[in-house]
């Protein structure tokens, strides 16, 4: 049970008319609340504009890039092609991703996810410049983090 909340502070009941009183408290609260809601809307709007990235498949990216071969701020999912992963001594990473037969090379420098390996699906985000994807982030989609299909054929028993 809640004890009287004001028990440890001076009770304010001596003041019948609080504040300047030009606006009703409800109206003032509405104003402050409105400011909060508008700030939320503003923050969402501004940051969507500043951070949202297109999410495309590899073929979509290639068709959007067209002849210029450039699309900025874009996110692409694809499968890491076997045998294309190269690590340079400086920690850089190059590989090729593929989807529906279309392929693009990716260069990346940064945190490589735990499960990065040939054949897994990755999502890269960054800029597509002159036919090469310069990734700023690299996410691995574990194809079966929670669910696994069984090996296609049971081992002979």
């Amino acid at each position, binding site marked *: 049970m809640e004890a009287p909340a004001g028990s440890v502070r001076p009770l304010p009941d001596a003041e019948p008319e609080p504040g300047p009183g030009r606006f009703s408290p409800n109206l003032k609260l509405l104003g402050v609340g409105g400011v909060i809601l508008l700030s939320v809307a503003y923050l969402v709007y501004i940051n*969507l504009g500043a951070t949202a990235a*297109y999410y495309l498949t590899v073929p979509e990216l290639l068709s959007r890039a067209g002849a210029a071969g450039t699309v900025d701020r874009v996110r692409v999912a694809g499968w890491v092609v076997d045998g294309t992963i190269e690590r340079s001594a400086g920690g850089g990473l190059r590989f090729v991703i593929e989807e529906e037969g279309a392929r693009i090379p990716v260069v990346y420098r940064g945190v490589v996810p735990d499960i990065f390996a040939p054949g897994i699906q990755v999502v890269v985000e960054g800029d597509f410049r002159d036919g090469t994807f310069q990734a700023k982030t690299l996410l691995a989609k*574990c194809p079966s983090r929670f669910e696994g299909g069984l090996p296609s054929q049971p081992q002979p028993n």
Partner: protein
Amino acid sequence: MAEFGRLALLFALGLAGYNLVAAVAGRRWDGALTSARNGLLGVAVLLTGAVAALLTALLTHDFSIRYVAENSSLEMPRIFIFTALWGGQAGSLLFWAWMLSALAALAVWLHFYAEARLIPWVIAVLSGIQLFFLLVINFLTNPFEKLPVVLPNGRGLNPLLQDPGMLVHPPLLLSGYVSWSIPFAFAAAALITGRLDRDWLQVTRAWAMLAWLVQGAGLVVGGWWAYHVLGWGGYWGWDPVENVALLPWLVGTAFIHSLMVQERRGMLKLWNFGLIMAAFNLSIFGTFVVRSGVLTSVHSFAQSSVGPAFFTFLGISLAASAALIFYRLPVLRTQGDFESLLSREAAFLLNNLLLVGIAFATLWGTIFPLLSEAVRGEKLTVGPPFYNQVNGPLLLGLLLLMGVGPLMGWRRTRPAALLRDLLGPALAGLVAVGLLFAVGIRLTEALLGFWAVVFVAGTVFLEFYRAVRVRRRAVGEGIIPALIGVIGRNRRRYGGYIVHLGILLMAVGVIGSNFFKLEREFTVRPGETFSLGRYTLRFERLGEWTDPGVRNVGALITQVEPFERELLPHRKFYRNWEQTPASHIEVVTVAPWLEDLYVFLTGWAADGSATIHVFVNPLVPFVWLGAAVALFGGVLAAWPARQTRAAPAAVPARGVVAGGG
């Protein structure tokens, strides 16, 4: 076992349908109501049987059952067999239904007589939810589905899930989702019957606190698991699956604050109903997102057939919630006005707007790919920068309110008194900022954040200090007994302040690790040294060894500076999961600087060189410490009061509403 489990699920489905009908009939007929209550218990017993059957099948390696073969193997350590229970879709939904049946039976048992008018509808609503889950489990994703052949061995659980964190994180998170059903059922019953007095609020508060605690704990353990297992050096990544788990918790946090306004002033009734309905619907939404694969997530659950079913249920549940609120709209209109902007109820309302604002922004970002595709035909996504930049300022505002709010009185506060109270904490914050500036911290956001933390801590301290001083004068106790006495006399209030202290500690960790993290990847040959920040490490050599079912590759590293110590980050290759090795990450908390040295083995080459990712994560231990403190405070605040007359308080004893039937 499979037959037993399958039958138990079918019977549970039938019984849930019966309970729904009997409960509605039970409004006028005691016999039917009692039978529905017992039926609810029956569903709990049957589902306990089904869970036991699945667990037995897992433990006895019955690979004739698809779920067992897909989620466990002979080599799996026995302890992780338990995680297989909720590691797959069918199992996790069974766990959902089981937890719901247990909580429903418990809630109805506890409140059967005291809330007699509400109970028929509570049982009906809970049975309706059970009915949906049991339909899905029975006909769409049955955990007892047989395989055409008996396999010699199973595939095993994904190695990332074979971790102690997975023993507690999913069940807590799932239970958290489930728990919002109980307050929802009581709120719905109150709306249907029109009994909108304080009774439903009391019951709902208790269960909302439980849900809040359980889900909060689930979120924290999830962060802990990600930090120690995934290797990206963080504990929260704003991934869709994390976001949707945060949503009901945020809305629930708003509810457990704003319900106090209704208790005290009889205001915000409509708002409170809206919040609790939203929390439940967001729980269903969360389960839907996790299970449907509709959003691209690192968690990437398998695409499955349960998506449309969940979507339909979500639609029905949303429509019903809205219809109920609309139906009672005339009665829910606010009685009483806000008397001043400087009042506690106003502070609570603003806190609510911020919490709901954060939830809204997070939801918007999470479903933005779907929205943009629907509206513009192009899929747009947002990542962590969006959430950090939107929610950062809002969280700072919330933090400031956390400091100002408790110092305000109900109805109105004298501005002069409030300012006098705020002066000390504000100055303390400035002193702290000065000290931080002196040691070389210049980042405005971080300084602002630390100022807010110290300021709020000061106001909380003031609350405790005054209460203890009053009590010491009155009773003549020492400081510690007086403190315990103060907390014990009003656990709800002071427990809440302890939660606030925990949140402040977490904020310290979040600010530190967000703004001052160091990270770098090194590719090194044996004998080479490399350094990051104040740490110097030497890579000795690669090593390989095997455990049952696991091949390990590790890098032996000596930390040279500032202390000498050996580190062995390694990767674990489980049989059948060679493509997705798990990791052992070395996370060393370095006491004098309160930071984590986080060493992760990224890769290696045939020439014996290794690629090692090193993070220095300042203040991260505060996140875990703060979470523990918040949890403790939450339990303190939520623990039901004993029904004694020990307190000679002015609160009139509320007579138990005679049930009558």
